[in-house]
């Protein structure tokens, strides 16, 4: 039993390290080779866990080889458009100027049900309002609406809005994020002052606090445990 526990922990660490090394893209929508690698890694890693008679290297070496191949293929596809096209294909236009491209639908074996589902996900109910819908290489559909159907932006309405930028987390679960405090250009004294204004005596009492580029603050206080 101890062997299984130790093997499981080792394989788990290897898988997490491999997924981490492969990069953030692989954790989001997967391309074909990335999906193959992710499935293979998880399947191969399980073999030494099911049978302790199988050497653990039989699970770890495939992970290392797949990880290396995936990194090299990603690099080659980045450098060469031809390789990228061969491995991942090309995006294709499914809807153009409100009209469904039936030839592309057949070529991609993309059914009307799938199209409807993807459009609903994009909050599109009227196909005639779609200027262009592109089926990406990872199977997702991206939609560009006609100008008249697009939501009105502040710029289009001639309204000037303040830029708020990305809010920086200053306190997370009662812990001060010093790096973010420095990034925001604020001091500990400023932070104490802001907490005092809201009758908060300790940093540890704050669940989440953010500040954005305009200086707007969001604070969420920890709930008192019953």
């Amino acid at each position, binding site marked *: 039993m101890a062997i299984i526990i130790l093997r499981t922990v080792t394989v788990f660490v290897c898988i997490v390290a491999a997924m981490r*090394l492969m990069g953030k893209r692989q954790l989001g929508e997967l391309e074909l080779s990335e999906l193959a690698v992710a499935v293979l890694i998880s399947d191969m890693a399980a073999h030494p866990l099911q049978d302790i*008679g*199988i*050497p653990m290297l039989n699970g770890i*070496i495939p992970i*290392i080889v797949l990880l290396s191949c995936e990194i*090299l293929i990603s*690099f080659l596809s980045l450098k060469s458009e031809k390789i990228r096209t061969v491995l991942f294909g090309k995006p294709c236009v499914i809807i153009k100027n409100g009209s469904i491209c039936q030839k592309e639908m057949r070529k991609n074996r993309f059914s009307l049900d799938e199209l409807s589902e993807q459009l609903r996900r994009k909050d599109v109910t009227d196909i005639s309002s779609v200027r262009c819908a592109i089926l990406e290489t990872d199977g997702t559909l991206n939609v560009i609406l006609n100008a008249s159907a697009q939501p009105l932006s502040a710029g289009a309405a001639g309204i000037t809005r303040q830029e708020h930028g990305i809010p920086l987390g200053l306190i997370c679960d009662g812990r001060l994020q010093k790096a973010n405090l420095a990034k925001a250009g604020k001091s500990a004294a400023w932070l104490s002052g802001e907490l005092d204004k809201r009758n908060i005596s300790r940093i540890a009492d704050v669940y989440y606090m953010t500040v954005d580029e305009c200086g707007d603050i969001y604070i969420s206080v920890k709930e008192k445990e019953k």
Partner: protein
Amino acid sequence: MKKELFAAALLIALSTLSAFNLRYLRALTLDMTSKIDAACAYAADGLWDSAAAEAGKAEEAWSSALGYASVFIRHAEADGVSDAFCELLGAIYGKDRPAVLRSAMILKKHVSGLYDMERPSLGSIL
């Protein structure tokens, strides 16, 4: 670029290590096989003490390589070789010529299998 170079280096290192592994296994299996053959020859001539000594040397070579073998070879295969050694030594101590020949054949098949399993060939890959 560093990650890609590291990945390429890792693949090359693994290929090199597998080549070394094959060389080591080849040398080990050839050594063990020659000692088993020598033990059989002694047993055929009735020199049971020499046969036991040769078989013992082969078994010693296997025992010292067992740790390494367990890392790369299925434990069932390694156990098969160990069991076959017990059979051979038992036949030698029992001074049973036909049993010695039979168990030596089985042992040599197991031993050669250790190398054949690791050797890349069309049959093993497909």
